């Protein structure tokens, strides 16, 4: 793995490949990475980002975040803003797991109060937040009710009693993408998703109990503003998305776009996973409406999971969630395409921003942020491996250069097949237990695949986003309990 010839440094932890790197590029590729991360990126990152740079309507650059790695069509960690009038929308720029995202929940509990109850907590969470193959969510819905979920997102869950209005305010876009139209969703997608609300999934999805130690606080003022204000504070972080529903939406439209690209749209198929359609076409609009449905299903999924977490903590500690100081810090997506206004004054315009494995990071003062975060900037959640911990960061004004986007995780460096050859799941679970990290997993094979050594250095990723001006580190959270599929 090495950066291709021709890549040049253009700023602190910022690199560029010009439009002469590959034929047909309309804009350059811009990579935010330390020298170490750049060197570690797989070659396909640059090739895929160059393919993205050829897409009609792309504005400014094809961006790669510091955690970028090989993906389908777009690299994971890829960002591309399109002119909605002349540009395209691509499922490969969003990801199969539409609105996969992170939610962080603070508690008022300190680690010494929780340590002796950790096993009980992790077991109860594993039981009540189903993960892996073959397990249904606890929310039972008929197809009409499920379509309401698709329209309303997390707001549906709160209206049903699974959360509070405060949760919604602390969720990106208040947990709902406007523009969702269930008529644009196939019956197959509905049949796949209808029993999955309230489930975590598998792969790299997880629910973690974490501790914020004093040495993990980078910015005490912002940490306090985010509610991270208890010595040795226990928090809960989870990572999941729109489950099989979102995948079916993506698969359905990928096939329909592939069929229409060469003839109807006159678009070349460079890579089947980079299938796209003009945003201003019936197919493009239909996909956007279906994608919004999947995003809303995902927001609702994370909302009902939060409800279960509140129930579990209340049961284990015999106190109400309010008494336990449980409150959502933020919920942020990292697999979406959204219509956003960027630029200032006369240069301000609406763009369709694809973020695939990339997190929105609005700066202080942004009008879309709730009052609590208007002065701090948007909380950003970067999930690490179950061994290395995760980060909370905040959006910064200097992030405007990448349409206010930053990293989403630590990014894989090793295939699942190779990781499984290097460690057995049971052995890793024991090793983690010896280090004080309790793991409950539906699949031991899945644990081996998610070993820390299969990922980039999350500390380096978080530090690079700060050096590049994309986001600012607030706190580093360490895992003590992990539930995964």
């Amino acid at each position: 793995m090495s950066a291709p010839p021709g890549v040049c440094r253009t700023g602190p932890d910022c690199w560029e490949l010009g439009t002469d790197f590959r034929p047909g590029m309309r804009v350059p590729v811009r990579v935010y990475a330390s020298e170490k991360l750049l060197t570690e990126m797989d070659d396909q990152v640059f090739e895929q980002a160059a393919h993205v740079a050829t897409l009609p309507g792309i504005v400014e650059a094809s961006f790669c975040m510091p955690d970028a790695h090989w993906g389908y069509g777009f690299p994971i960690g890829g960002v591309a803003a399109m002119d909605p009038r002349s540009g395209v929308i691509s499922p490969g720029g969003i990801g199969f797991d539409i609105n996969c995202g992170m939610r962080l929940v603070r508690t008022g509990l300190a680690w010494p109060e929780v340590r002796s109850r950790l096993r009980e907590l992790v077991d109860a969470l594993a039981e009540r937040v189903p993960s892996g193959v073959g397990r249904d969510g606890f929310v039972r819905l008929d197809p009409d009710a499920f379509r309401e979920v698709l329209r309303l997102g997390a707001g549906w869950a709160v209206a049903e009693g699974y959360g509070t209005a405060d949760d919604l305010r602390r969720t990106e876009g208040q947990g709902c993408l406007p523009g969702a139209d269930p008529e644009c969703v196939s019956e197959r997608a509905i049949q796949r998703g209808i029993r999955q609300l309230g489930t975590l999934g598998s792969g790299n999805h997880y629910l973690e109990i974490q501790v914020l130690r004093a040495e993990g606080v980078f910015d005490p003022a912002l940490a306090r503003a985010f509610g991270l204000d208890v010595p040795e504070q226990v928090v809960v972080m989870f990572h999941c998305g729109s489950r099989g529903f979102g995948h079916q939406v993506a698969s359905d439209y990928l096939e329909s776009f592939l069929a229409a690209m060469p003839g109807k749209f006159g678009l070349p198929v460079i890579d089947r996973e980079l299938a796209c359609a003009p945003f201003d076409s019936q197919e493009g609009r239909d996909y956007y409406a279906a994608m919004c449905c999947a995003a809303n299903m995902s927001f609702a999924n994370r909302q009902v999971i939060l409800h279960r977490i509140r129930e579990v903590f209340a049961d284990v500690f015999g106190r109400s969630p309010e008494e336990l100081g449980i409150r959502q810090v933020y919920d942020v997506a990292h697999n979406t395409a959204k219509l956003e206004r960027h630029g200032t004054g006369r240069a301000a315009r609406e763009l369709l921003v694809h973020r695939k494995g990339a997190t929105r990071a609005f700066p202080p003062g942004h009008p879309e942020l709730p009052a609590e975060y208007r002065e701090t900037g948007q909380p950003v959640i970067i999930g690490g491996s179950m061994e290395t911990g995760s980060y909370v960061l905040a959006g910064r004004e200097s992030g405007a250069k990448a349409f206010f986007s930053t990293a989403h995780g630590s990014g894989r460096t090793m295939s699942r097949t190779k990781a499984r050859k290097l460690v057995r799941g049971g052995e890793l679970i024991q090793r983690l237990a010896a280090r004080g990290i309790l793991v409950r997993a539906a699949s031991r094979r899945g644990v081996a695949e998610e070993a820390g050594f299969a990922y980039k250095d999350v500390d380096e990723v978080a530090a690079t986003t700060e050096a590049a001006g994309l986001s600012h580190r607030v706190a580093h959270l360490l895992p003590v309990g992990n539930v995964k599929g």
Partner: protein
Amino acid sequence: MSGAVPFEFVEGATSDLSFVARGESCEAALAAAAEALLAATVEDPAGVEPREVRRVTLVAPDLDLLLLRFLNELVYLRDAERLLLRARSLRVTQDGGQARLEAELVGEPWRAGHHVAAGEVKAATAHGLALQRVGAGWEARATLDV
């Protein structure tokens, strides 16, 4: 077709699972691809018993996309009907620029406590997708999003 069929997981997608499945015929390669998917889903695919049958007919513009549709049909049936399935008999025909698959699938519903999860495949993807003749046999290549 439920005997030993050749497939192997290979280095490919960083985040996901890539496999190569082989057979003497196009149908045998497709059956082996279904076995690869089953092995990515449960720890003991041989323990999936033939209790239920599903018949499906799939059409695609070419053989590659027929493989994609076949794998995604199996993923769909796992999520929507909880079924773990393998191929019992397959028939592929090509006519007028279309590839058509008539498949008889056999398996059983997921049984908690009996089946041990290996992973949850969420989709087969178009990355590196191929269903083609290689030498004297056939080969199916695909990447599964997990």
